[in-house]
């Protein structure tokens, strides 16, 4: 039984089948990439897996559990974290607060004890802060800790979003285009971090990517989508040479 398994996932918006009978398996500990031209259904697939949408058909299993019909806020505590293609950070909060919000699934105290801020709540807050500082160290965000997101450049926001996902201490991380809009240097840093997260923290990574350089460097296996369907699966080199993939990107001759 694989770690994350999607079976025959489908969803339609109006008359368009955005995702059409897509199945794939991700093994524990690997880096799995999903590629495809614009509108292939990659982000929709992520939204299905993370519970933002519920599928019209098919199922998703994660760590031996059926999560198909669970809402997003019930999936996150199981150890599945995600980022967004267009960055969905909490704009008017600081980097530190954003990362602390990522600790939400690890809270232990109740809202009523927060009114009084009992000693147990303070101990919990200190624990959260220590864990958040570990992430800040890993992603080199110390310099921006007290900054509001609204004042940060785009590249840093991308990193903060990965940081917030890491604060959940996930077992599986879904990265939606982690390098889109980044300059070559920032992209390379992101590549190293993805490797670190996978190797040192033991987090399984599934990412949507356009950047084939990044995919060949970090991903073990690649799934290619086009118009909501799977057109190829295999190692980065195999998929890049696959005629169906070349067709999808460049058009048939």
């Amino acid at each position, binding site marked *: 039984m694989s770690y994350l398994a999607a079976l025959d996932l489908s969803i339609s918006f109006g008359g368009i089948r955005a995702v059409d009978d897509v199945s794939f398996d991700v093994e524990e500990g690997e880096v799995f990439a999903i590629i495809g031209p614009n509108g292939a259904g990659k982000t929709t697939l992520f939204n299905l897996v993370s519970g*933002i949408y519920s599928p019209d058909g098919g199922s998703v299993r994660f760590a031996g559990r059926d999560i198909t019909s669970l809402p997003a806020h019930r999936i996150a505590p199981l150890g599945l974290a995600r980022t967004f293609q267009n960055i969905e950070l909490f*704009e008017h909060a600081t980097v530190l607060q954003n990362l602390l919000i990522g600790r939400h699934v690890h809270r232990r105290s109740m809202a009523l004890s927060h009114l009084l801020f009992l000693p147990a709540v303070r101990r919990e807050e200190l624990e959260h802060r220590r864990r958040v500082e570990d992430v800040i160290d890993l992603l080199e965000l110390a310099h921006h800790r007290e900054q509001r997101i609204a004042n940060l450049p785009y590249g840093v926001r991308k990193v903060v979003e990965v940081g917030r996902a890491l604060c959940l201490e996930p077992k599986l991380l879904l990265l939606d285009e982690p390098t889109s809009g980044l300059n070559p240097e920032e992209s390379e840093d992101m590549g190293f971090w993805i490797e670190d997260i996978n190797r040192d923290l033991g987090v399984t990574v599934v990412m949507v990517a356009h950047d084939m350089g990044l995919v060949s460097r970090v991903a073990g296996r690649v799934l290619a989508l086009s118009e909501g369907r799977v057109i190829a699966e295999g190692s980065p080199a195999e998929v890049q040479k696959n005629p169906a993939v070349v067709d999808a990107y460049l058009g048939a001759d």
Partner: protein
Amino acid sequence: MRFLFKTHYNQDIDHLKHGGDRFWYGLLLVLVAAAPAALGTFYLGELNLVMIYAIAGVGLMLLVGYTGQVSLGHAAFLAIGAYTHSLLLGAGLPFLLSIVAAVLVSALVGAGVGWIALRMTGIYLAIATLAFAMLTEQTISRAEWLTGGFRGLAVPQASLFGMPLTQGWQHYYVTLTLLVLTLLAALNILRSSTGRAMVAIRDSEISAESVGINLAVYKTFAFALSAGITGLAGALFAHRLGYLSPDAFTFLISLQLLLMVVVGGVGSMRGVIYGALFIGFLPQLLAIARDTLPPRIAQAPGLEPGIFGLILVLVILFEPQGIFGRWLKIKSYFQLFPLYRRATHRRQKTYLRTERLR
């Protein structure tokens, strides 16, 4: 400019971050505690009203400024708090117990409204809460067997620890104590995971969900908390009015509460206090100004709401962060002197977000 050398995470958690904070807030507390000795009955009463507004403002700020849910119906919770308190006091319940009951009843109704309004946002939520306020006003005026309808309801004399509350200064100290406790509770919520969840919902519902925040639970909780605190203000407001009738809790009161939050500075607890001072003392300033203005302008009908509206428009146009935002700018001007640049506080553009999922 102050540079803080932090050696422990507790320093980021504490309410008072450094010696300066402790000194100024301590001084403020001493001053407001000593106010009854220095102020006459009239101004003491006005200050009492300002603090009642401030309590209601804390409630509304938690909802509007921190959870991002607009409410145009908070006068209803003020009314529910006031009527519950007066009725229970009349039934012989002790003052403190009846206040607690007023808070709980308002919170319960707030939770109900929040739960019903879960799927609504923005302008639709504003309309729904407005409708709820109208409904409450109507219910109070029709339920004559309970509330006396438009004949009104006399607020019974309260007594605390066997001492009847008759003097202005007694009410002043009760309100002051409850305001301080309310502020502390609100700030405690804001520095814990519950408050962060509220901020998360305000800024991005979709990513709040994806970090495991149950939107329904936290939105309902925010409504209940906000309504409960506003109900507390309502209970105190009842003593100020002395006589309750439905037309004391009209739409204009809801609007005034919202104005207070916006003028003070959305998203800051200090803004609530500034806003309350503004709302509380503006009518006095207008009254004074009236004496010097030519009678044709001074006696014009609707002068007061007109000026309130004008101020609201000007604040939203030129200082969206309200009085608190202006204060931050003035402070950094002096801290950075002579290096301050206007661009420091310029609003940054939000990066385009195309992915609208709901």
